[in-house]
């Protein structure tokens, strides 16, 4: 059985490699565009098959409860460098998420890439894309830290190239630079962490026993990992690359980046802190929890201010990472206090939200891509009325929006509910500080949910409803069928997991059991119903399916009653009420800026909005035009990163001209001084 699964998995990897090779051929031989388009379709088809196989193998791995699969073990002649890949439950879970997303994204790409036709080298894109997927699989299945590090860097590098793929825009390349610099520095910290561990255990293997590491070193390593992975995950205040990089990348790549790449950081935290290092102190969890709260709240606050579809989604990723971290933090605290069940519950919540976020955020980015594909703009102030021209896209987008706002029959609610429950369960007598924090986290979660809903009402309402605000929006046409299918599958999965959460949770339970040693399946009741509460009899239950049924029945009843009472439905179509003035047009509608203004005013201390009004014309009493613009200050960039960056530049520049003066006398003096210094050193040493 193991052998069979292993082969299945390797087959999937091999297919990706084949896809990469094929794309490389297309790239290098620069076939005419028509051929390269066919080639691209084939490469994507290969990816679809590969992801299908990979996903199936991973799911089977978890469900059939076989031992962890040793996939590949090749060592190189260079010290430490080896290719060692294992597939255990945790890896399999993340690979499953990856595969599901890749499946849909590849399907979507078939249609999406057609807009590159004749403009760009699709072969290159596909090459980077497949390699990127391979790198992520490598990250998720690496069995030693060196291998992990290499794949991690490869993943960063490839995603960097994908971010700058549309390189003619300067903002894209800048975004890429910010991204690669931040991620590389973070990776350096990871490297330090790995090597500190190595210096105690003398092994890079993930199976190494880390018990011998002294507590202080463990603390340092934890902080390094937190910053290292935190940067990739985009936790505040290390998030600033995210809102730059996601909009810059092509949408299918943003979907992968936001959907699964930033989750590799969550994988890293679980894998390295929980499994590898072992949670040692309660404060580890507390730090993560606090960062989670911060990221969730600030992330959603910035989400609600954004008017660029993809930037909005990027900030929203920050928020969701925050939610995941809240779950993770609670689980770390619980494991540190040896509450296995609570820990497992919280871990389940975090991991489920990870999976869910993969689905809906991937979907949303695909949706954003579809909008961009149809209208060539990412600015929602230029959109409107797309629901009429792009009905299916609108429907899917609505589903994703509801899911991400944690609204009931969708999967987002399930994971948030579990997070609430884990927070609730973590409030135990005796830990006032922790309890206080848990309550705060719950409040933050509530705020986050409502504000996310507000943001997505804006996003959906302004871009899909009302009147089109620009010509492109008016002329938009629905996207190719493959793109639609890609999004459709994700939407269906969102709803599916929302309605039948237990299927997913039971799968997840095996993962959590192998990671944390606790299982919550004993607490679960019902086939599709969900019930959980650890301390008393399970009476806290939710059943989205029942709710859906009830909803359906009530709607039906209401319909019937109204039909009976009110008779036949007679509808009169007429213009929207305009208070008797001129007919409404697209500019009298509420704009996205207007929509989010109340929130901006309420949180003005955070946003520090800058308003600018320019009156054009001769007299201020008879203006020809009034241009009003408002921007939100990004406090972390303006008050943290910018000053530090400038200070560094200034330091560099000054030192440069002070040291390398161009005067040979100075240079000779350095040599002279060093000679004297070292002679003195020798005298005293």
């Amino acid at each position, binding site marked *: 059985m193991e052998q069979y699964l292993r082969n299945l998995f390797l087959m999937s990897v091999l297919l990706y490699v084949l896809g990469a090779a094929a794309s490389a051929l297309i790239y290098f031989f620069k076939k005419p565009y028509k051929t390269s388009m066919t080639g691209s379709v084939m490469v994507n088809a290969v990816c679809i098959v590969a992801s299908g196989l990979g996903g199936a193998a991973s799911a089977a791995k978890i469900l059939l409860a076989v031992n962890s699969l040793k996939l590949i073990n090749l060592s190189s002649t260079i010290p430490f460098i080896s290719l060692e890949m294992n597939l255990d439950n945790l890896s399999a879970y993340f690979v499953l998420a990856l595969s599901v997303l890749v499946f849909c994204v590849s399907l979507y790409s078939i249609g999406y890439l057609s807009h590159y036709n004749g403009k760009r080298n699709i072969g290159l894109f596909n090459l980077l894309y497949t390699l990127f997927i391979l790198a992520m699989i490598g990250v998720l299945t690496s069995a030693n830290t060196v291998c992990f590090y290499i794949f991690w860097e490869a993943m960063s590098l490839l995603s960097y190239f994908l971010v700058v793929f549309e390189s003619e825009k300067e903002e894209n390349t800048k975004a890429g630079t910010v991204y690669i610099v931040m991620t590389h520095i973070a990776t350096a910290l990871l490297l330090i962490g790995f090597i500190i561990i190595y210096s105690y255990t003398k092994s890079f293997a993930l199976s190494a026993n880390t018990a011998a590491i002294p507590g202080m070193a463990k603390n340092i390593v934890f902080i390094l990992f937190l910053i290292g992975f935190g940067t990739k995950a985009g936790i505040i205040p290390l998030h600033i690359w995210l809102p730059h990089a996601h909009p810059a990348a092509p949408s299918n790549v943003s979907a992968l980046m936001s959907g699964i790449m930033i989750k590799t950081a969550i994988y890293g935290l679980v894998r390295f802190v929980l499994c590898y290092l072992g949670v040692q102190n309660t404060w580890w969890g507390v730090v993560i929890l606090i960062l989670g709260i911060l990221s969730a709240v600030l992330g959603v606050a910035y989400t609600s201010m954004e008017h660029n579809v993809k930037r909005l989604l990027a900030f929203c990723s920050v928020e969701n990472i925050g939610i995941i971290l809240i779950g993770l933090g609670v689980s770390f605290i619980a494991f540190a206090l040896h509450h296995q069940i609570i820990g497992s519950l919280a871990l389940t919540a975090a991991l489920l939200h990870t999976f869910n976020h993969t689905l809906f955020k991937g979907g949303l980015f695909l949706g954003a891509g579809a909008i961009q594909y149809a209208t060539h703009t990412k600015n929602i102030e230029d959109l*409107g009325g797309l*629901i009429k021209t792009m009905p299916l896209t609108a429907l899917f987008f609505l589903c994703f*929006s*509801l899911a991400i*706002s*944690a*609204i*009931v029959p969708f999967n987002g609610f399930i994971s948030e*509910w579990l997070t609430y*429950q884990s927070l*609730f369960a973590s409030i135990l*007598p005796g830990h*006032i500080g922790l309890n*206080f924090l848990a*309550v705060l986290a*719950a409040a*933050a979660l509530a*705020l986050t*949910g*409502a504000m996310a*809903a*507000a943001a997505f*009402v*804006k996003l959906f*309402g302004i871009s899909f*409803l*009302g*009147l089109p605000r620009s010509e492109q929006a008016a002329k938009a046409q629905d996207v190719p069928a493959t793109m639609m299918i890609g999004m459709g599958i994700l939407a269906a999965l969102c709803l599916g997991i929302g309605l039948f959460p237990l299927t997913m949770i039971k799968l997840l339970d095996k993962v959590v059991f192998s990671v944390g040693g606790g299982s919550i399946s004993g607490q679960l009741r019902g086939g599709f*119903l969900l019930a959980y*509460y650890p301390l008393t009899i399970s*009476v*806290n*239950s*939710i059943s989205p399916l029942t*709710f859906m049924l*009830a*909803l359906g029945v*009530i*709607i039906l009843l*209401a319909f019937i009653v*109204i039909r009976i*009472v*009110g*008779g036949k439905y*007679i*509808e*009169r*179509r*007429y213009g*929207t*009420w305009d208070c008797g003035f001129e007919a*409404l047009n*697209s500019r009298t*509608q*509420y704009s996205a800026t*207007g*929509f*989010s203004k*109340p929130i901006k005013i*309420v949180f003005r201390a955070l946003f520090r909005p800058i308003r600018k009004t320019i009156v054009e014309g001769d007299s201020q009493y008879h203006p020809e035009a009034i241009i009003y613009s408002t921007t939100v200050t990004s406090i972390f960039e303006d008050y943290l990163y910018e000053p530090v960056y400038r200070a560094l530049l200034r330091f560099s520049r000054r030192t440069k001209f002070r040291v390398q003066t161009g005067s040979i006398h100075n240079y000779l003096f350095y040599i002279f001084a060093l000679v004297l210094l070292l002679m003195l050193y020798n005298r005293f040493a």
Partner: protein
Amino acid sequence: MNNIVYLLVQLLVILLVAPFVNGLIKKVKALSQKRKGASVFQMYFDLYKLVKKKTVVSNVSSWIFHVTPYIVFATAMAAALLVPVSTKILPPQIPGDFIMVVSILALGRFFLMIAALDTASTFGGMGSSREAMISALIEPSILISMFTVALISRSTSLPQIMETVQKVGIPLAHPVYIMVGLALLIIILAETCRIPVDDPATHLELTMVHEAMILEYSGRHLALLEYGAAVKQLVFMTLFVNILIPQDQLIGVIGLGALILSLLIYLLKVILLALVMGIIEVNTVKLKLFSIPNLAALSFILAFLGVLQFLILGGKHV
């Protein structure tokens, strides 16, 4: 069997009482303004009238506009099914807890907000935008105040919470509950679009939130939305009265008689609360929109103080 009885009782009570409560509050307001006011049953007639009417639909709107009334009404009703009016006829398990209730209501609200944007009307956008802000601010207080009572009973399930509360004696004499009660009261007023800015009775754009969102609706759609709003209001009121003024512990017997008695007391409590709400609304001046954060903060602080009390005292409240 229990399930069906429970469902029927919930449905009937909520459906019947909701418009009445609305009328009652209006009556209180009318009386306070030295008007006679409409009958307390006026809303039933209004609903009937609206259902009978033809429907005008904006030619900008899409299917969102059409499905929203049904969804809003259905979600309100679905939420109502999860908030027992009486603990005398509880099924063994209710498929949802208060988090679910909040989420269900959020579904309705989500649709209401996007429907308001669907018609390209400025009013719709305005209402939707304001509603977004208010809900964002109020949500944490709802969660925290419910969290507090849930912590006391160590369960997030509403029947469980209500049953635990019955053992407390007089909850309103208890510091934790007082805090939660005050927080909930503010929440109810804000959620039902009353103070400090909104006014369900007028269509003045300065004060419009909920009414602005449903401005484009007419006919049976409007009826559903109005009904839905009334149901939602009653859901919150039920939460309030059944948690803070439990009565079922007084009634020993289990059976039809007890049920009826319990329901009567429930009705009494609701009427009482409606009167209080009416009086509060009458006695409060309308404030500018951006005083809502203060109100929300107040409610949040109250709820948080409640939970703090609970935590500091070590959870010995049962």
